[in-house]
């Protein structure tokens, strides 16, 4: 679908022709994000450099009745940053200035295109960091994190993005600018910031974010615990959590993942002989850590595990880089990777993982697991080749079964990647039609005409899940 000529002219008037792309071969790189399974070509890509331009772009799109979608680095894994229905991509990567750092009050004001890791680096001299640390933090943007309510390994102790956003500036779908929340983190009335975080760019375009910064811990210890298999590692995680310890992170990496990472530039010397490795990070006052390490050692010994300690900060950083590079490293196994994301009550992890393994075996798929065990947040990764239609069909079928298995034990279908296009038609697994109607009302209050990132989160037409159960899955009607 091509953009109306008038719209292109209007967009070029706002940002100049350099920052407005419209030819098919130029647009192609924006046809998908981190999820290669779904794609859709935008009708134009426009790159604003300030809030004012964003507002004008939105108004231009409205004038020409064209939907639009904000995009950061496009590292999302649920198709949230692709433009459906011939929409315009508003690429926010160049809204990349850190506007203020207030060390005394532990906050920073940033534009949405600031890269997550760059923010932490910039505030380090103040003894602070930005706590949410999705694995893509080297590349992903704060704006994208806000849209997806991104998590990461350290959310176990520090919480997800929503716990760290104090205030926002939003360009509403009608082009008006609105400030929400307060730099104090409290809200005089309704918590609209909390409503916008995680709304996947469907209620407006965030153009400024005030974030809470966290003091760097006084001391950090990273343990590498070697288990015979993933299930015993999960049991140990449960034992640690119910003992009252709150590690900063608890991550499980299975054998196949270790092999892939160790073959990559992120090789960290992870042990190749363990069935699964549990990465435990503890932080806090130096005095408090040794007793915690001893408790964890004892709890893991019950499962017959061996505990190693990172020797120094350099080794600790290597471990984490390896953990965070794991997804990309799967590219060594096959041309494509489907990173699943689901959450189950932590105590149900062992049975769910066994079930996921069984599903993938049955569909003859290559499964690897690397996930946030402390939160019960699974990431079953399936390596495949999208050119193999049969394999693709098996990937899709297994994906659905995995989600059903998670929901069956009280879980949900996304813990941090979002719904996007990927899972919108699975929302019916978790929510009733009435639940979804309530969500639709929220969206409609912000965007009554459905122009802001349409086709995401909620099944369309609204109740197609009920009306036509066969419409679930990936076999949608093509555009």
């Amino acid at each position, binding site marked *: 679908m091509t953009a109306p000529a008038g719209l292109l002219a209007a967009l070029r008037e706002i940002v100049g022709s350099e920052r407005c792309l419209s030819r098919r071969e130029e647009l*192609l790189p924006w046809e998908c994000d981190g999820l290669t399974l779904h794609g859709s070509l935008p009708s134009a890509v426009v790159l604003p450099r300030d809030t004012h331009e964003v507002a004008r772009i939105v108004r231009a799109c409205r004038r020409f009745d064209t939907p639009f979608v904000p995009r950061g680095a496009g590292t999302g894994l649920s*198709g949230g940053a692709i433009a459906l229905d011939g929409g315009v991509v508003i690429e926010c990567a160049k809204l990349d200035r850190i506007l203020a750092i207030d060390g005394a009050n532990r906050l920073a004001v940033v534009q949405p295109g600031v890269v997550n890791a760059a923010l932490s680096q910039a505030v380090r001299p103040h003894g602070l960091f930005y706590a949410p640390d999705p694995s893509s933090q080297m590349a992903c943007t704060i704006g994208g994190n806000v849209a997806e309510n991104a998590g990461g390994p350290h959310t176990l102790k520090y919480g997800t993005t929503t716990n760290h956003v104090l205030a926002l500036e939003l360009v509403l779908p009608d082009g008006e600018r609105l400030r929400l929340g307060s730099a104090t983190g409290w809200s005089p009335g309704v918590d609209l910031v909390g409503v916008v975080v995680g709304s996947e760019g469907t209620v407006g375009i965030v153009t400024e974010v005030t974030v809470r910064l966290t003091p760097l811990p006084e001391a950090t210890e990273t343990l590498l615990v070697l288990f015979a298999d993933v299930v015993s590692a999960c049991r140990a995680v449960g034992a640690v959590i119910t003992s009252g310890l709150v590690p900063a992170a608890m991550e499980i990496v299975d054998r196949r993942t270790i092999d892939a990472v160790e073959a990559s530039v992120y090789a960290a010397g992870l042990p190749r002989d363990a069935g699964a490795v549990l990465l435990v990070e503890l932080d806090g006052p130096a005095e408090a850590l040794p007793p915690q390490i001893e408790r964890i050692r004892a709890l893991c010994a019950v499962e017959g595990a061996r505990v190693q300690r990172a020797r120094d900060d350099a080794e600790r950083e290597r471990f984490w880089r390896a953990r965070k590079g794991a997804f990309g490293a799967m590219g060594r196994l096959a041309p494509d990777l489907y990173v699943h994301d689901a959450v189950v009550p932590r105590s149900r992890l062992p049975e769910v993982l066994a079930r996921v393994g069984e599903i993938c075996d049955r569909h003859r798929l290559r499964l690897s697991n690397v996930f946030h065990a402390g939160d019960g947040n699974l990431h079953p990764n399936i390596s495949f080749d999208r*050119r193999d239609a049969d394999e693709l069909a098996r990937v899709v079928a297994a994906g659905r079964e995995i989600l059903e298995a998670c929901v069956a034990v009280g879980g949900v279908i996304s813990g941090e990647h979002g719904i996007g296009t990927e899972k919108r038609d699975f929302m019916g697994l978790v929510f009733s039609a009435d639940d979804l109607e309530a969500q639709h009302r929220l969206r409609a209050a912000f965007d009554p005409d459905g122009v802001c990132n349409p086709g995401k989160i909620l099944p369309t037409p609204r109740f197609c899940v009920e009306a036509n159960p066969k419409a679930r899955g990936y076999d949608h009607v093509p555009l």
Partner: protein
Amino acid sequence: MRQLFEGADPAVSGAAAPGGAIPEGPLAAIYAGTLDCVHCGLCLSSCPTYRETGRELSSPRGRVHLMRAVAEGRIEFGATLAEEAYLCLGCRACETACPSGVRFGRLLEETRAAVEHAGLRRGFARRLERFALRRVIPNRRRLRLAVDALAWLQRLRLDRAALAWLPRRLAAPLALAPRVPPRAARRPLPWRTRPVMDLAVASQSDVMRTHRASVPKPPRGRVLLFTGCVMSELFGDVHHATARVLAANGFEVVVPHSQVCCGALQAHAGDAAFARELLRINLEAFAGARADAIVVNSAGCGAALREAGDWLPGEGDALARRIRDPLELLDEVGLRPPAGSMHARACYDDPCHLVHGQRIREAPRRVLRNVPGLELVEHEDPTSCCGAAGIYNLTHPEMSDAILERKLRTLAAADPDLILSGNPGCLMQLRAGSRRLGLRAEVLHPMTVLDRAYRNQES
């Protein structure tokens, strides 16, 4: 919405098995290489052109996406990819960031070769570039004449005058050109430099004398020095310094005289055939001499020679295995710490083709930390490109300047006395930039600093 690529193209529709039907077309040869990318995007923030433009199109992931789309026949091989292939600096920072091991530098070279083959790049500038890369740079006599001419211009201060009235594209090379060193510094290296006896036994005042003294058996081995093209003419002093430092560390240094330009610039410009010719000559030049390593003090040449196997599998691989950066070699064998010192605050800025192309990051820092008096300070983002990228600063001056400015800002913040970088392109670029921005730092090759430290012990 649709599933990506499904039925979009005859080459991939149907039940093509993984790695099965390989498409035909301009980029068919690199199709398999593009499949390594799983679209995770970790490369984006490492890419200078993405950081400058914010365009997925101008990112490594976007470029691989386009290459794959062309190979699959989803889009025509046309101007967009051709422009992007040349807008890319080829710094390969994305390779260091890539967990799935996409060999981007390789994909880029092949794409550029295909661009040239398809005639997608034309015009006077391209013809001039090709002439320079084929006829001048690899030809020692012509290169020397050209540098002589430059030296005269500089001496008569005509270069400054020319800057004022020349159009920007033509003025840029003049502005970038370093001051041509005096003839004496451009004198070729002796074919052999003898090793210095172990410093532990040589008294301080003996050093320079033992430099020439004959030692019956090389204590640490013999190395061959690769001298390249521009390096010899414009940075001959670095070669002399390299030879002296290696000698001081117990190496016999031999310079094979039939060697030629490494071909990197030509290959980066899409002229793979010519690069292959040069490589054949070099294979012969280095085949005869028995030596433990071939030392390459220019990061760009080193990276190219280490990947000689891509151009000539077999023979090339054998050559590649012998290539060493001098700092890497000194780190391996252990630097004999200079008795003299070099009191300065220094920033080491990684040449892309050393840190990304050859994956050498810590060795130079370890070696430099052993220089008495030298305070090594880290500046922000030392591993990002300075914008030189071979002849990129001539072909894409605006982008190059923007990238250079970002680099200089981070360097200025660290306020060093010295900026160290082991690649001629980077040295030229950083010198020109420092001059323009009025930075006080001296821009040097690390071997020059080591050499000064060894020589300082005499005085």
